[in-house]
Structures are given as structure tokens and as C-alpha cells.
């Protein structure tokens, strides 16, 4: 745009400017003043530049200097915008991430929440699951030898009939023992056997009162708690008791032995 070389005809352009504005050192100034005494171009150029500078000075002193410096006040919105733009402190990465999540639409917020839960669950599995051995993880009750199924199922308890107290008592007696894992088919067979036994008991109950005299309620309930094999002996014992009531107690010991002998025969 313009020539940056020294424009003075005698090559002292920079010195003329420096001398004009009194920024020249004493030794340099002395040397330049010696040059001015001998040069035919520089004194005229210096005078012309001085006139221009004085005119600009007059402009400044006449128009600008009387002006008072305006009071610069930053408007409120400028400070607020500056603070919002992160003038005070730039937000950290976590704050940016938090703001990003908060500005997401609702659907993405839900998805982010599920992702966070899944991540936490995965971390928990990695941390806690990795500490356990495979044996500790697979805590399964002992399986019966007869069982062929690996499925873990609770035994089927048939409570359809109130007379089926036998099975209930068996379970109640063994309540402290861990329930065995049984095959559903096996448990069904067992239930069928128990119901067959229950039917025998009911048959004896049905026959008992017919053959013997009516007794107290406690005697009526007693056979239900006994084993089915001992029921004929009980019938005989009842007959002997009736004989005792008639006063014939002499052959009681013999009859009792007969009674148990009969049981042994069975």
C-alpha cells in the first residue's frame, strides 16, 4: 500500500519523524542537527511536517481537549451476558454433562436413567459376583437319589380332605428338616399311596363303631393316630376290656399275649 522505505530524499525520513516528536536521544539528535545544517531537503520537509502536526494539535486542543471524558458504565445485561458466557469460570466437564442431560427431551432422559441403572447393575455384578465361587452361587438343597429331575419344586401337599391328617402330621413332624426336592411324578405317586392308606383308616373308622360299643370321644379319636396294622389288635383289646368289665380278669395276661401274638403273625 505504501512504501516502507525511508522516504526522505536524503535517506533521513525516520530521523525527521523522530526528531519532530522529540523522541531522539541526545547523541542522535546532535548528529541529525549537524545534518540539517548541510542538507537542502530535510529542513524544508521538517518544517512542512511540523506545520501539519501543529494543525492537528490545534484541532485536538480546540475540539477534543475541552471534551470531558464520558463515564463508561457497563450495562447490567452486559455483566449478566458475560457471566452466562462463562466469563467468571468456565464450566467443568461434569457440569456440561449435567446441563446436557437436563436439556434433553423427556424420552431421552428416561433412556439415560435406564442406561444408568443398567450400568450400575452391571458394575455391582462385576464387583460382587466376581468375589463368589461357583459353589457359593449355586446354593441348592440336596436332591433325593430317586429324583431324576433337576427342577427345584416344592412337594405337592394334598389338603383336599380333612381326614388326610397323616400326611399333614408327617410334614409337621419333619418341619425342621429341609424339604426334599422331588419329582412331581414321584410326589404324585406318594400322594396316591397316602390317600390309599387314608381310605383304609376311614374304612376302619367306619367299621370300628359298628363292632364295638360306643365309647368316649377320646377313644373314638385314638385309632386315627395309630398305624393301620394295629387296628385289628385294638378291636380285640376292646373286646377284652369288655370282658374285664364283666369281672373276668384272670386270663387277661394270656389274652394280651394272644393279642400281640396275633399282631406278630400279621
Amino acid at each position, binding site marked *: *500500500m*505504501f*512504501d*516502507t*522505505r*525511508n*522516504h*526522505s530524499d536524503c535517506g533521513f*525520513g*525516520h530521523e*525527521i*519523524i*523522530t526528531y519532530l*516528536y522529540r*523522541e531522539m536521544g541526545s547523541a542522535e539528535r546532535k548528529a541529525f542537527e549537524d545534518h540539517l545544517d548541510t542538507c537542502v531537503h530535510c529542513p524544508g520537509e521538517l518544517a*512542512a*511536517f*511540523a*506545520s*501539519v*502536526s*501543529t*494543525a*492537528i*494539535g*490545534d*484541532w*485536538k486542543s*480546540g*475540539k*477534543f481537549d*475541552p*471534551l470531558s*471524558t*464520558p463515564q*463508561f458504565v*457497563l*450495562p447490567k445485561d*452486559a*455483566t449478566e*451476558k*458475560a457471566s452466562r*458466557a*462463562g*466469563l*467468571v*469460570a*468456565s464450566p467443568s466437564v461434569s457440569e456440561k454433562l449435567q446441563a446436557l442431560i437436563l436439556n434433553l427431551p423427556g424420552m431421552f432422559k428416561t433412556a439415560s436413567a435406564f442406561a444408568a441403572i443398567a450400568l450400575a447393575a452391571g458394575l455391582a455384578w462385576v464387583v460382587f459376583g466376581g468375589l463368589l465361587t461357583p459353589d457359593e452361587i449355586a446354593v441348592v438343597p440336596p436332591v433325593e437319589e430317586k429324583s431324576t429331575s433337576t427342577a427345584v419344586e416344592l412337594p405337592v401337599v394334598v389338603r383336599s380332605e380333612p381326614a388326610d391328617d397323616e400326611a399333614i402330621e408327617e410334614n409337621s413332624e419333619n418341619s425342621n428338616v429341609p424339604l426334599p426336592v422331588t419329582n412331581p411324578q414321584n410326589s404324585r405317586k406318594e400322594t396316591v399311596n397316602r390317600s390309599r392308606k387314608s381310605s383304609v383308616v376311614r374304612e376302619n373308622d367306619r367299621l370300628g363303631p359298628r363292632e364295638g360299643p360306643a365309647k368316649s370321644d377320646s377313644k373314638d379319636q385314638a385309632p386315627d393316630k395309630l398305624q393301620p396294622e394295629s387296628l385289628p389288635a385294638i378291636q380285640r383289646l376292646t373286646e377284652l376290656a369288655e370282658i374285664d368289665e364283666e369281672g373276668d380278669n384272670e386270663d387277661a395276661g394270656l389274652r394280651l399275649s394272644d393279642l400281640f401274638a396275633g399282631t406278630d403273625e400279621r
Partner: protein
Amino acid sequence: MLTDKTDEELVQLAVSDDPEAFGEIVKRWERKIFALCYGMLNREDEAKDAAQETFIAAFKNLARFRGDAKVSSWLHRIAVNQCLTRKRREKTRSESYIDDSDSTGEKFFKAPSSLTPARLTEKDERIKAVRLAVSALPPDLKQIVVMKEFEEMTFQEISDAMEIPLSTVKSRLYTALKQLRMKLQRTPLEVV
């Protein structure tokens, strides 16, 4: 004490949310920036607005201030950009700066009482001619003239503020004065 700190230290304090630090920067530079804007724009109201916008822009961009640059350079660059933007805006409106400034600036002009009316008129004509000539300079030359004459900065300070070599500053000023002299040859320039 904020007055003992450098401009760069004040900027760091201002970034750290110290409101008084930026106030100190404004206090140090408001007159010079106002002078630069006045010299570039030739209108008091425009110069005030440009200086105000300069400090607002600086405040908003404090966080972006490069530590290796000088605050003076930064503020001057913002101010010159503000002035050039306003100049371009005014050019599109086809308005004359000089004619407007004559009417707005007269109330602040107080001539020495020793001058006769004839001398006053002559001086006014001369000032008007200089203002026209300076306004016609290219922006980079005009900035150097204004910084030297209005802000009364040294060559080294101008070099630092504009981030250009010292020799370039002198060359530009030499070129500017030469062009001004040629433009003002038709107007008698008497040294009062």
C-alpha cells in the same frame, strides 16, 4: 492496590470476578480510547458510543484475552474495529462526518480571548481543512496519526499496541504526514 498492578494483572483479576479490576483498566485507558475514537470518527457522540462499545466488548471477551498480548494492543484493536464498523455504517447512509461534527462540536470549542475574530475564522478554516485531510487518509495511516497526535503515544507504545515493528510505525507516520502536507498545500498552514 490495583493501581500498582500492570494491565495484564488487572485482566487476570477481572477474569477472577474482581469488578474493581476492570474498572481500573477503564480508568487508565478511557481518555486515550476516547481520543482515538474521536480522531478516527471526528464526531463527539460517535466517539463516545464507540468508546463505550469498546469497553463493553472488552469486558465481554475478557476470558478470551491472550496473556501474551498487551492490553493496550487489545483495546486499540477493538476500538479501531469499532470505528471502522461505524464508518462503514455511516458510508452506507451517505452522511458526512465533517459537516455533522462542525455543528455538534462547536459548543465545546473555546478560543483564546486574545485571538481576533479574523484569526479565529482563519484557525477554524485550518482546523476544518486538517480534519478533512486526516479523514481522507487510509485507516492504517490515520490510526497512526491519531495515536501519535491525540493519544500522544510514543513510537514504541504504538508499536506495542499495534504489534508492528517500530520502523513500520515511523514509515507509516512519515507517509501520512507527507500525504497530509500535499492535501493541505492549498490551505495556508500558519504556525500560531
